[in-house]
């Protein structure tokens, strides 16, 4: 599974970073989401899913590897 952020939609709520700091951080200029680990380790998929579902902007997407190619 891969996680993607649409930076046009992202407004810097940082909910993803709060929920799964292993995968997400935020930049120091605008505070928008930064994906540190695009390929999500199996152990973190559930947490990343939660981050996706909590994004108030709907800016995150979790996609299966086949789709992302």
């Amino acid at each position: 599974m891969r996680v993607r952020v649409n930076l046009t939609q992202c407004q810097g709520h940082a909910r993803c970073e709060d929920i799964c700091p292993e995968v997400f951080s935020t930049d120091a200029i605008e505070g928008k989401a930064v994906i540190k680990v695009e390929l999500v380790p199996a152990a973190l998929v559930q947490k990343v899913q939660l981050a996706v579902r909590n994004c108030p902007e709907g800016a995150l997407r979790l996609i299966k590897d086949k789709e992302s190619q």
Partner: protein
Amino acid sequence: MMSDTFMPSPPTHVPPELIVDFDFFQVPDGLSDPAEIWHQLVREGAPKIFYTPRNGGHWVFLDYLDIVEGYRDFQLFSTYQTPIPPIEPFPTMQPQGVDPPQHEVFRMLLAPMFTPVAIRQRTAEIERRSRRNIDSFADTGACDFIDDYATKLPTGMFLHLMGLPEERLPEFLDLSNVFFRSNDNQARAQNLEQIYRVLDVMFEDKKAQPRDDLATKILQARGHDGALLPYQQKLDCAFLLFVAGLDTVTNTMAYIWRYLATTPNARAAMRERLHDPDALMRAVEELFRINAVSNLYRRVTRDTAFKSVVMKRNDRVVLPNTVANRNPAVFMDPDVIDLDRQVNRHVTFGVGPHRCLGSHLAKREVLVSLQCWFERIPEFRLSDEGHRVHAFGGPVMGFRNLPLIWD
């Protein structure tokens, strides 16, 4: 809410079935939670989009998705010149009161100072202030939470960020009180002048003695072309920080502490998670969801039909976050306060380009306050007078006093 006072006739483009007599500044005596006037509307089956002739006349959106669209579609729902009741001319707050792309100029200037990275660096300062405030009354076994804590921390942080002396706290509290509570046009116009005068003096001082603070940064700000930004816009930016940072956090905290004071299980739950950052942040998000104190304003930019409802250019719109946050289609058991809520897409800080820039500071202030408070005062309750509540409505909802006691 029904009222006996004179009601102006609604504009002709509003069909009678969409008119509800609702005055969101008026909270009936005895109602302890001003947000209830909004939830009552929903329970009574008010139309999802309705018009009230009160306060100069305005639309209200009640559906989560419409509220979200109201925030996102800045081309239709502008933040420029939105006061309710209308007061003109009204300052154009920077960057809140201008639409993209002009909005970028000041947004990008302020953004680096309010990112999670920047706010984490302020944590020690917030803790220091929080502990100092709590120490000042902890041994007495009583405080008025609003006067002694919830106003002092966010306003003190504002003064700290702007590089203003701590002694000016009462002055800023008074100014903000009129700004948010008054719907008297003369008082409001006078208040605006006073606020601008205070900010002008602040910038004069910074010009003479530049410091490493937010006020100096704004004063020295340059546009993309390298030229200094117009002075008036800098005043408008300082005005925004004043308006946005003081009252909202105060009232959110007041709501949260009243809930904790009256709910033993919630106090126990908070004590359990004080040193578990994930669980504490989940709880803080839930407390921000259920205690969404702000009702935001927008102005319709052109004659249009929004969701088949005819609206005219310059119509005002109110977006009540508290209603969005309890939409059963979006939140499971929306009226239940679940400190472990897993999926919580609340809109307390708005969404879209004007998402509250100070949200990370606000959350940090609440989170640190909870930690410092429970370390020192693990058990507390409302005093007897605490049950007599003077609640107020308007753009920021809350109540005047919160007397707490502990053993």
